């Protein structure tokens, strides 16, 4: 199947053929800074979550934002999507959402006397899936392929997705009524699961004032273009990970498999995604190499949703693993 079958954007689509040069680490840090600053214009008091999202964006990973309704999940996702001058689509999760609503379908073309593929919203650079756990499992499976493979198969034909492709999904962990909990396989495909911090009184007041007087998320200007985003992703992949740091990451992941509080530990895919996200985190922190503290900083966001806890919760177990696993100090 030819590449770029369906150009969706008006501008030239960035594909693997036009892979840009990687940026310098300092430039990527600046890009991340711009992204964070821009998003922080409308998302107040969530510096941690914003940084996580920036890291996921730069590592090409997908993010699941999990929180109770009304705390700014969608605003956060929306703000990120708007900050990139890329093709942005939004899908509202609902029980009657069909896979073809997401992926697109083949329709009969009267003129050419053949089926023509009409791409669905998944053919975008940034896909915001609101209330992901409200979509039925079949539709969730359609996302599964798109997120992992970067392709969509309809009627036996694979259609490549634009690159980079990032899914920002939100879900509400409280109301499980009428929801289809995400299968572990799909959870594993999210590089990070981000929960929002409770707002301080000052921040909350600012949010209200901003909403009344200032620009909202829909007025947010894009701050990076798709080529820059692409180059940043390429650059993040080159961030140096010392063998000792890789070993430390693996020790943390394997720790989840042995820990008494965890019934089922993180997978190898989790380990890969963990290190990759740490690369992005290092760049966001202004470094061109990964240090163990990068892994520590993202450990909960990257691992907690990938393990099945037993007893006192997986979060505490991961903290325990972090405290017990010795940091490589060269001696």
């Amino acid at each position, binding site marked *: 199947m030819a590449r770029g079958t369906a150009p969706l954007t008006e501008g030239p689509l960035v594909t693997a053929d036009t892979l840009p040069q990687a940026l310098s*680490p*300092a430039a990527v*840090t600046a890009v991340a800074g711009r992204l964070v600053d821009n998003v922080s214009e409308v998302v107040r008091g969530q510096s941690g979550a914003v940084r996580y999202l920036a890291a996921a964006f730069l590592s090409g990973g997908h993010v699941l934002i999990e929180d109770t309704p009304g705390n700014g999940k969608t605003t956060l996702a929306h703000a990120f999507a708007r900050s990139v001058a890329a093709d942005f689509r939004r899908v509202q999760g609902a029980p009657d959402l069909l896979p073809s609503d997401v992926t697109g379908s083949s329709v009969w073309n009267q003129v050419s006397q053949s089926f023509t593929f009409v791409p669905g919203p998944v053919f975008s650079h940034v896909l915001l899936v609101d209330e992901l756990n409200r979509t039925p499992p079949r539709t969730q499976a359609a996302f599964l392929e798109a997120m992992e493979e970067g392709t969509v198969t309809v009627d036996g034909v694979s259609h490549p997705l634009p690159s980079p492709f990032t899914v920002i999904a939100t879900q509400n962990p409280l109301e499980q009524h009428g929801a289809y909990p995400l299968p572990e396989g799909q959870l594993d495909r999210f590089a990070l699961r981000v929960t929002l911090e409770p707002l301080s009184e000052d921040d909350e007041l600012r949010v209200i004032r901003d909403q009344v007087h200032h620009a909202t998320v829909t007025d947010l200007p894009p701050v990076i273009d798709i080529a820059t985003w692409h180059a940043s992703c390429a650059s993040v992949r080159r961030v*140096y990970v*010392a*063998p*000792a*740091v890789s070993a430390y990451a693996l020790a943390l992941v394997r720790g989840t498999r042995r820990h008494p509080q965890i019934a089922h530990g993180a997978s190898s895919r989790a380990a890969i995604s963990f290190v990759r996200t740490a690369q992005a985190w290092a760049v966001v922190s*202004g*470094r*061109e*190499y*990964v*240090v*163990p*503290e990068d892994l*520590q900083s993202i450990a909960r966001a990257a691992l907690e949703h990938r393990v099945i806890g037993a007893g006192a919760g997986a979060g505490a177990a991961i903290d325990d693993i*972090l*405290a*017990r*696993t*010795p*940091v*490589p*100090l*060269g*001696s």
Partner: protein
Amino acid sequence: MTAEGRGNGRRSLTRLGLWLVAIASAITSIGFLRGDVWMYLVALLALATVVVSWAAVPRLPHLESTLVIPTYEVVGQATPARLVLRSPARRSPRHRLTLTAPGDADPVELVIEPLAAGETRTIDLDLHPAARGVFRERRTSHWTAAPFGLVRRTHTDLSAMTRAIAAGIDDHVRVAPGSQPGDGESGQMTVGRSGPDVHALRSWSSGDGTRIHWRTTVRRGSPVVVDREAHERTSLLVIAGPSHPVPEAADAVIARVAGIASRAARDGAEVRLVSSRGSDQLIASELEALLPWTVIAEPTSGTSAADHAAAAFSPGARVAIVTSDGLTGGAWVAEAARFDVDVVEVEVAPRSSVPRREPAVPTFSRALAVATMGSLGAGVLCLTAAGVLGSAAAAGWLLALGAGAGLGLMRPATFADVRLRTLVSIGIIAVNGLLAFRSADDGDLALAGATAVCGVALAQLVSTRTRRDALVALGLGPVMVVAAAGFAPTPALVLPTILTAIAVLLGLGAAARDSLVDNTLPATSTMGAHPPSGSLLVPVSAAVLLGVVAYLVLPLGSAPTLSGSLLGESPVSQQSAAERAAQVTPTYFNGTLDLSARGHLPETPAFDVPAGTDGLWRAMTLSQVTDGTWFSTPVQATYTADSSGRITLPTDPAEDGAPTAAARDYLVRPIGAWNVIAPGPATTVRGLSSLAQWASDAYSLDASVAPFTVAATARTDVDSLTHTGGGADRGESEWVQLDPSTTQRTVDLARSIVGTTTDRVAVVRAVESWLRTNVRYQLDAPLPPRDQNAVDYLLFESHAGFCEHFAAAETILLRSIGIPSRMATGYVASSRNSEASGRITIRASDAHAWVEVWVPGHGWVSSDPTAGSALAAPADQSLVQTLLAGWNRLWSSDSGRRTLAVGLVLLATLAGAIAFPLRRRRAVAVRRDAETRGVSLEPLAAFARYRAALSADGHQLGPGDGVAEVRRLVTEPALITALVIVERTLYASTLPPGHVRVATAELLDRRTAALTARHQPIPSR
């Protein structure tokens, strides 16, 4: 005037002297330049490097000293108390210690014999119980390494100062009689008759008016104001987290803080001492004991300014915040802003006041050392190229540079002892002074100056310990270049100048890199903390490449005449300026021809002559020779001019006996040269009203420059003759006179060439052909040594020369077997240069010299030994000579230089293409090597010790707490930088440079020692 002030004065004087040398050299060189664009570039380059290196110097830490603080502690409350003496750093001097107990007891006076480094001695004392506590004798000795190997020793008695201050507050300690009031290190405190008087100094900001403290301003290089008035109005004084940048400065800090506090207390201010995290426990406790002030908080870890600010500040108060390290203070000033109080900052221990321990190893990298030696080496090469230093002297200097400086810089342990270094420096300066004195005595001022400069440079290099010293030495290279350009602006300077520029630029780059490990640089961003190794190398190499390529590509012809060659010798040694000036003008037509000189001939047109007159156009003949210089026959008869504008030239007596031939008219148009030229002996000249005659057969245009018609008989060439005709020979001595210095082997050679041939034509052609075969034509042939006959040198040593040399050699060879001959000079007209108009252009570069031989029956015939002498080297030439000849051919032609430039660019591209991946691979390989083989990296072990010390200090550090956690525990910028370097060593793709790692390890170990020392009890014995 303080000792510090004196030192500054000397440094300023040194710098002023260097500036004067540089300016004088520049002016001299410009005076000599005579409009040569290359020499201007050389001078500009040299000046730019001087300026840049000088601009870099003041920014560097300038005081290096050794501090000796024997510490005295009186232990125990019983009588007798025990006095513990310790000399921590070096051997302490013999001195007197006076301990005065309060009340009625007599002062105890002790004479302390010198203590060896690290020695501890105990003395039992019968002291009054009230005198218990800690006494510190504060006496410091400074060994300061000043530029140029000058070393001075200063002595400051800090204890007197402290006691004087303390006396104003408390009566515990009295100033011992006889001790001199000292001056504060930074000159900010004076102990006067009316007690301590404290000035608060701070940086000038707009609105401060003229309360500038000039002495400090001059020293710091930025305006500093005295803040006494503001200080006196202070109602609240907060001493925040007293600490000290280096342990040795503790006493100075205590003295200053105590002084300020006592002054403020006397002025009615309430004094509060805040010993928070970051304050030094020893200083804090000593201050607590010293003054009756409010102590805000007990020292605890994990607290910060924010926790104490509410207790420390009263809203609306005027607060002076006294800080000693600028760091804790910064936090307090920030806090004060929240409490709506006016803040006056008082910096207790500014950087300049911190006495520094002389580094055990130089505080600069080897890269800077190498660049410095390179700069000086290239400077010596410049002086050699300019002919100021003989090659033997230059070799000696380079050897000394390599040995002395290399030993001093590369093996610091060898020169660790300051006395040894002083001795060596003095020795070098003395020897050079003697040499310079002798040279000056001989009237050779140039050599004297050069010797002096070299001596100073070498002494400076040997005594170099700090980055600043190294930079001063680095700057001397450009000074030498400028001086050399002043002595002789020869193109031979270009290469060494480029080398100097490269060395200086690299050196400055290395110095900039070294400064990254300077303790004062807060580097919190990890991205920039690691010096990007090699990033400077690329732009510098690119700039140098660009310069060299530009030099190669720009045509040679655009530069006016200059003697000397790029790699060549010094034609100007021991000559006066006038002689030199005479040499740089073409030597062909002014009546003499010196074989040891050479002119560069530009491509500018000189004449144009009718078509079909290819061949030799004669301007004059030279027959007398003395010591390699040929002279023409003086004027014997003058020309006559008639009214029709026809000038009749006198008949040349040399032509007597020659067969007569009809003269022809030739129309000559002078364009760039003003000689009268003709294809043979001229009889008449038309078209000119007058001529200047300066030899019997040499004329030049006089009043007007206009085309003229010359009637002359063309000379026959010897190559067109087959045999000698019948006729008279010319036997006058004038035509067979030999240079008195002609060697016997020249005469022998002539005989062997001729052999048994007798026919004159055959003989001449044999000599011609011998020369064409055995001597190589080379425009920039080596010049003969002053004491050697030029022809002898050509025939037996150099085997290379140009037309003058060929012609002179043939003339001498012919004369030595009795054949009348003489030199002729003029131009070669070649139909290759013919224009569309049918005329031939003769250029200045067509200037030529050949031989005229008397052949019976034919008269004077021309013989040109140069024509047909191939540029190709003779078969028996050595490889080096072949290569040199090839290089010279490439170098001397525009196209060759362009080829060189293209080759250079290609080579650089190739080198870049190879080096870039190689460097990456090498960096990764080093990294991998360290990982796989478990190579012990300096900062890692030091970090492990520091971490352990932190744990022992009460900080909870688990296995999951790495470098970042430790970073959260510290606030000192230098320490944070060090931790970033540890982090890089552990996790980054490339290791930080070795010297950075070593410096980091040292810093960490110092802090570890400081941490550990807090917990060690005072030894009782």
